[in-house]
């Protein structure tokens, strides 16, 4: 039980709480981004936070969380607005606008980063950690800041809930109702910046894109309702944050950010596979059960048709006996629709003479009636 002592570890507590906060904010905000087809905008905004981090550092003169967060928010929001402006005012498509904002802002960030390094400021060490995050360096005071931002953005989201929902699903209708559609769109887009600044310390600017997308995509598989989706996304975010942080703490030297992202990715894969109704596994099972039902009906039908006209004894079975047919024959016999007699001519199932019971005849007739009804 020695590993339990880790829960009393100060750093570990900070990291887990921080990761949970990150999940809590990025899940709900990401849900809106994903539904509004702006998944990659989160990527651009998080890359664009880098010059803000550097500017915040230059202005404050030290690695102060407050000024760094303000800087990141300003440049992140600026990149988002610039991207919207590029798409509206030029003939570039959305993807190119996102790519331009992402790469240029990041390049400015790199230039500023090297400028700070060149200026020989002693406290600049660790500024680079914002590329990948440095979860272990999280302080209690950072947590209060992150918690405050999370609380603020979730409150804002719940206040704007109806408007945001309408703008997400039917902007034209929202417009006819007289809602300030562009304002709400801009607000929803720039709010992603808030999630990004919470993630700065945890996963860094490079991997933040996945924290926006993954919980939302996972949640989308489990629910068709926006409200439920937002809650599930928050839950998925918290679970992946906490599990990533814990794995990182238990293994020595594995970075927290990538582990959080991988946990989220695994939850997405599981959700895609097993979520009820939408899950790929259920789809496959449904397909198989339909196939076997069809097979059973085919056998009933052919047996009913051949029983009167041909002798199975001389011709063998009136259909090819493969695996699925064998399964279907077995199932039908279990249900008492078929009986079989040994004829010794061939081994196993093929060596039997199959005939319908009176129950089977009735079933076959109802199948035929249904088929005839469908044809005519």
């Amino acid at each position, binding site marked *: 039980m020695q590993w339990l002592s880790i829960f009393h570890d100060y750093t570990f507590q900070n990291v887990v709480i921080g990761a949970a906060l990150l999940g809590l904010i990025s899940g709900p905000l990401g849900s809106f981004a*994903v539904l509004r*087809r*702006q*998944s*990659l905008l*989160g*990527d651009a905004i998080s*890359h664009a936070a880098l010059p803000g981090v550097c500017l915040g550092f230059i202005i404050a003169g030290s690695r102060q969380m407050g000024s760094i967060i303000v800087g990141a928010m300003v440049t992140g929001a600026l990149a988002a607005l610039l991207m919207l402006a*590029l798409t509206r*005012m*030029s*003939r*570039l*498509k*959305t*993807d*190119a606008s*996102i*790519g*331009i904002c*992402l*790469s*240029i802002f*990041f*390049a*400015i960030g*790199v*230039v*500023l*980063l*090297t*400028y700070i390094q*060149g200026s020989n400021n002693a406290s600049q060490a660790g500024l*680079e950690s914002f*590329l*990948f995050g440095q979860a272990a360096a999280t302080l209690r005071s950072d947590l209060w800041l992150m918690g405050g931002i999370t609380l603020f953005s979730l409150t804002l989201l719940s206040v704007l809930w109806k408007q945001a929902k309408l703008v997400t699903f039917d902007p034209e209708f929202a417009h006819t109702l007289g809602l300030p559609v562009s304002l709400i769109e801009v607000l929803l887009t720039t709010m992603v910046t808030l999630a990004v600044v919470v993630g700065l310390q945890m996963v860094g600017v*490079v*991997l933040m*894109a*996945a924290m*926006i*997308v*993954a919980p*939302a*995509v996972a949640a*989308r*598989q489990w629910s068709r309702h926006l409200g439920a989706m937002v809650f599930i996304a928050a839950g998925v975010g918290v679970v992946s944050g906490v599990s990533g942080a814990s794995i990182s703490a238990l293994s020595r*030297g*594995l*970075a927290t*950010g*990538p*582990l959080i*992202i*991988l946990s989220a*990715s695994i939850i*997405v894969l599981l959700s*895609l596979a097993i979520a009820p109704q*939408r899950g*790929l596994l259920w789809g496959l099972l449904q397909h198989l059960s339909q196939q076997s039902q069809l097979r059973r009906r085919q056998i009933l039908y052919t047996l009913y048709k051949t029983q009167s006209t041909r002798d199975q004894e001389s011709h063998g079975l009136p259909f090819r006996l493969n695996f699925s047919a064998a399964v279907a024959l077995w199932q039908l016999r279990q249900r008492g629709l078929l009986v079989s007699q040994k004829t010794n001519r061939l081994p196993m199932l093929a060596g039997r003479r199959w005939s319908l019971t009176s129950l089977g005849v009735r079933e076959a007739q109802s199948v035929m009636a249904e088929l005839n009804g469908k044809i005519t």
Partner: protein
Amino acid sequence: MLDVFFSSIELQIMAVGALVGIASSAVGTFLVLRGNSMLTDAISHSIVFGIVIVWLLTHQQSGWFQLVGAALTGLLTVFLTELLANTKRVKQDAAIGLVFPALFSIGVLLLNLYANDVHIDTHTVLLGEIGFIWLDITTIAGYNVPQALVSMGIVTAVNYLFIILFYKELKLATFDPALAKTLGFAPSILFYALLMLTSTTAVAAFDAVGAVLFIAFAIVPPSAAYLLTDRLWLMFLIGAFISVASSVTGYYLAVRWNVSIGGMMAVMTGAFFVLAFIGGPRYGIVSQKIRRMNARRANAL
């Protein structure tokens, strides 16, 4: 003339920058036109995964293995993205946003695990340093040439060879994929070939500019060119011109302010893009505004 070029580190750094730009904007042009430019983002991040895997298998940090590995990783990224999107449960853009961070994370974790014996660290992976190309030299015809210059030269030549050979097909597949398919040109195979070239370009440019700045060189010059012209061949020329201009100006500004050379070159592509966005002759916002004002005046009369 050659002597001057090969004895000047400055000129060679600028040449590498320009070649990175020319090679990546050549493939980037098609991606921007097709609306797939964020695939460069995905590819450039996930080749980190490929580079680490190839390094663990062969212990080679550059060379043919890495190029082939990168091409395969690029294809893997696109394949996984399409696989996710084809389930119809995830939209294309969300699929991109899921696949590359996952691959990138695995790459970073592998770096963590084997950090002691891998020379690449996450810093160089992301940023690269074009100023250090001089550290890795080969000798060709009596001249000392940076390895990066040779590999970028080859990649540029291969990219343009591909584009010149399949110019008509690529043009058709870009602007009318449906027609290209009915005529039997297999646009998807062309597209995959293009993405393989994009990945090899990314890995060749990797040492010089890193994973993220590659995106700037691949997307920004073609986008600026797209705002300046309607002719496909002119887009290549303008893209190449912007690449050369930004690597020259970027180099001098970087030296003057003592900042990252690759980063400054990428920033300069952005500056040229802004110029095209504002002052482009036909699609720039100034000329759009003038045209709108003229139309209004004509209406008022």
